[in-house]
């Protein structure tokens, strides 16, 4: 519909609209003139017109005056100024600001010259912030710190008050309040990290940007990444809050003379040598940390060497078995153990009940250790944080880790005791122990294992028959002895790390850095070995896929004994011991439980392998 001249009905709203626009545009100026009639100080007449707010009239901020006469007579007062009308985002942040919550500071309490405030191009904002905050807050610590000194020298990267505490969002974290120790530690640690991990900023200031990464590689840093409430040191706990100085400065909290008191605020009962622990170690720095560097190389070599050899062995084995399987299937040949009849179906015991129980305990404790330890190793990943949340936090997860370690230590002690009993049977004294150690029932390697290893490789490459095994194959012996080595490496380092303050009475603090590295790398080796190599050798090899329940049911067919361990079979027959090893067929419940537990463990292990490898390669 068109608006035409003479149409009063349409002309009236249009006129009102024009009037309203005119009023809004002109009222501030008009009101300002009226206000200055009484408020005629130079501040309002001169300074305000030059200020950043000059475009606003008085009533833009001082609202609520409806009658100038009443206001002049003191009967009508303006409403409190609400800067949030324009500065909406800041006003929203400010609702949680400590100064508002606790001291009821309003905008003009800091921005006192609000009527004369001007844009000052080139102004050192950081210096201005420090000057403003230190009007009330004591500045002795801060101005003596590296940050304060740098800002005073014109550095624009160094942290001013607001970089850590926020400007309009100053948090309600107060040293006297003691209500938010966890949140405060988390909050301020993140603030420190934000700048100190910024490679461009650190390079500009001749500082290392790796300090954060080195810290994150330590127990302190990893638990911090997983999320508190486990009480570990954030940046400010060691470097203090304001008095942040290089360690060469005697006033610094990390000066050697102050370390005992500094570490002693969290740790107690330690030997002074505890202080040689490195909080930001760089494993790759040969000059600065030679022992750590050597350990790093050794553990890396052990990890890569062991996995490379056994993965190569596994791939060759799998190819040989798969190709052989294919040939037999094509030619219609069925292995005797599959079509066994009569005597061949007889079950023979391979693992007694106590060893089966021990293996179940080993599986349970190992998974608990992996599920509580690896989230700490890969603390920065989402999956690790989820797993720790499921445990109920890093502290509870740590308790389970130590509980599982105890189970494993007791189990290993029992195996060691059993091994001694095997070597020195009652009534024989020391007689014949070497023969038993190197004999066919022993899990200790002997010359035949070396021959079997060569034989297997010849077989892999179609250069000969597969070797004939006795009771234990060389890879089974490796599995067994690897657990002993693992217990020495992981268990020994774990015990040192369990109570580091007490450990310092035995070893210096820097050994704890080595212990942490050994613990972590050996755990990685153990997990990858078990979840890939052991799983394949025992369960995923094509003729046993998807699992061999033998370790849970304890028995297998006589035909399988003949096929897999012919030399043991011949010995058992020759020694007349075979009859004594015959057992009933395992019951349905036992088979079901074995299959469920076994398959569940295999699937969990594979899932964890994926997570570990993903973290290793991409996290």
């Amino acid at each position, binding site marked *: 519909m068109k608006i035409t001249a003479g149409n009063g009905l349409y002309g009236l709203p249009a006129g009102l609209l024009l009037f309203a626009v005119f009023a809004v545009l002109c009222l501030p100026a008009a009101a300002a003139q009226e206000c200055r009639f009484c408020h005629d100080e130079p501040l309002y007449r001169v300074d305000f017109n030059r200020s950043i707010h000059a475009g606003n009239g008085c009533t833009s901020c001082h609202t609520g005056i409806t009658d100038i006469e009443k206001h002049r007579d003191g009967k009508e007062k303006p409403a409190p100024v609400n800067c949030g009308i324009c500065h909406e985002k800041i006003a929203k942040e400010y609702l949680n600001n400590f100064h508002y919550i*606790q*001291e009821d500071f309003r905008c003009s309490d800091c921005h006192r010259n609000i009527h004369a405030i001007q844009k000052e191009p080139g102004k050192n904002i950081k210096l201005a912030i420090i000057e403003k905050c230190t009007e009330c807050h004591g500045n002795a610590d801060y101005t003596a710190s590296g940050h304060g000194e740098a800002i005073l020298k014109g550095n624009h990267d160094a942290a001013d008050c607001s970089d850590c505490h926020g400007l309009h969002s100053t948090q309600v974290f107060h040293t006297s309040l003691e209500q938010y120790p966890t949140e405060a530690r988390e909050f301020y640690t993140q603030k420190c990290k934000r700048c100190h991990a910024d490679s461009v900023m650190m390079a500009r200031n001749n500082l290392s940007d790796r300090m954060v990464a080195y810290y994150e590689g330590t127990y302190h840093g990893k638990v911090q990444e997983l999320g508190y409430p486990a009480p570990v040191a954030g940046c400010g706990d060691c470097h203090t809050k304001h008095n942040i100085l290089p360690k060469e400065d005697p006033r610094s909290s990390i000066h050697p003379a102050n370390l005992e008191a500094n570490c002693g605020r969290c740790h107690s009962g330690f030997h002074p040598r505890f202080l040689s622990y490195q909080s930001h170690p760089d494993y790759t720095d040969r000059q600065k940390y030679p022992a750590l560097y050597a350990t790093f190389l050794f553990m890396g070599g052990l990890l890569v060497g062991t996995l490379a050899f056994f993965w190569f062995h596994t791939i060759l084995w799998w190819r040989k078995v798969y190709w052989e399987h294919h040939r037999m299937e094509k030619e219609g040949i069925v292995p005797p153990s599959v079509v066994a009849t009569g005597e061949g179906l007889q079950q023979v015991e391979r693992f007694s009940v106590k060893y089966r129980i021990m293996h179940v305990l080993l599986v349970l404790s190992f998974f608990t250790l992996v599920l509580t330890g690896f989230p700490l190793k890969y603390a920065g990943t989402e999956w690790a944080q989820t797993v720790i949340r499921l445990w109920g936090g890093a502290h509870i997860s740590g308790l389970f880790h130590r509980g599982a370690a105890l189970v494993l230590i007791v189990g290993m002690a029992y195996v060691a005791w059993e091994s001694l009993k095997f070597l020195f049977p009652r009534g024989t004294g020391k007689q014949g122990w070497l023969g038993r150690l190197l004999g066919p029932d022993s899990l200790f390697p002997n010359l035949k294992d070396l021959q079997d290893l060569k034989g297997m490789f010849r077989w892999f490459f179609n250069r000969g028959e597969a070797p004939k095994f006795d009771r234990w194959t060389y890879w089974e012996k490796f599995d067994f002895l690897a657990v002993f080595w693992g217990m020495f490496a992981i268990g020994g380092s774990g015990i040192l790390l369990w109570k580091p303050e007490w450990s310092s009475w035995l070893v210096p603090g820097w050994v704890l850095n080595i212990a942490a590295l050994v613990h972590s790398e050996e755990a990685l080796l153990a997990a990858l070995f078990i979840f890939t190599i052991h799983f394949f050798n025992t369960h995923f090899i094509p003729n046993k896929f998807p699992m061999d329940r033998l370790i849970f049911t304890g028995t297998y067919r006589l035909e399988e004994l003949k096929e897999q361990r012919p030399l043991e079979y011949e010995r058992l027959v020759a020694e007349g011991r075979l009859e004594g090893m015959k057992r009933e067929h395992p019951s349905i419940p036992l088979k079901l439980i074995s299959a469920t537990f076994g398959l569940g463990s295999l699937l969990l292990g594979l899932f964890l392998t994926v997570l570990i490898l993903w973290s290793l390669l991409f996290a």
Partner: protein
Amino acid sequence: MLTLALAACGKPAEAPPPWKVIDAPTLRALMASDKDLLVINTMSEIECLDHRIPGSQCMACEEIEKDITLLPPDKNRVMVFYCESAGCYRSCRAAGAAVKAGYTQVHVLDRGMPAWKQAGYAMETVERIPRGSIPSVRASALKQMMAERKDLLLVDLRSEQSYREGHIEGAVNKPLYRLSRDYAAIPLDRTLVLLDDRGFRTFLAGSYLEMKGYQVIRLFGGMQAWQEMTAAK
């Protein structure tokens, strides 16, 4: 509600308190619907007049404890106590006194005025104190200053009872809840060092005294920081 009640008075191990705990939105709704509602600010008069929940009455916790007749005679009057601490220490003490005196409709605002502010609700000012630049000193610095300067006067703003239980030698007791009446007795020719429990209340008190012509500094962290320093030594 139980959780709220426990959190409100910061004593999780104890039984629920004999008063009701309400949150900020509930109080706001009550204020709109119940014109007889009595909302009581238990901070000092200085603090209460400076900023309070609109329509509040100013009755310091210590004064209610001393003289319960400050409360209205109707024992069934609905009343809500609040203070400026999320721990509600002062409002709980005042509420306890009211319950003990037989008042039946006693409430405490959960997490006090901080919760009200964080909810974004309006505040009311009767006599705004211009915020000054009140410098703070740490306990160790104060000790050094006390040894070097003779013009310092330590003014302990805590309650009479807290002062009696222990104070810095030479400090005079001017409880904050009475400061607006007692400040004139403080000499003008000394630099005042204000002391409180934890360092939170000396800023506004300092601004008030500065407005009255005094030169003021304050102890950062209050007597708690002082005691920590002396315990550490």
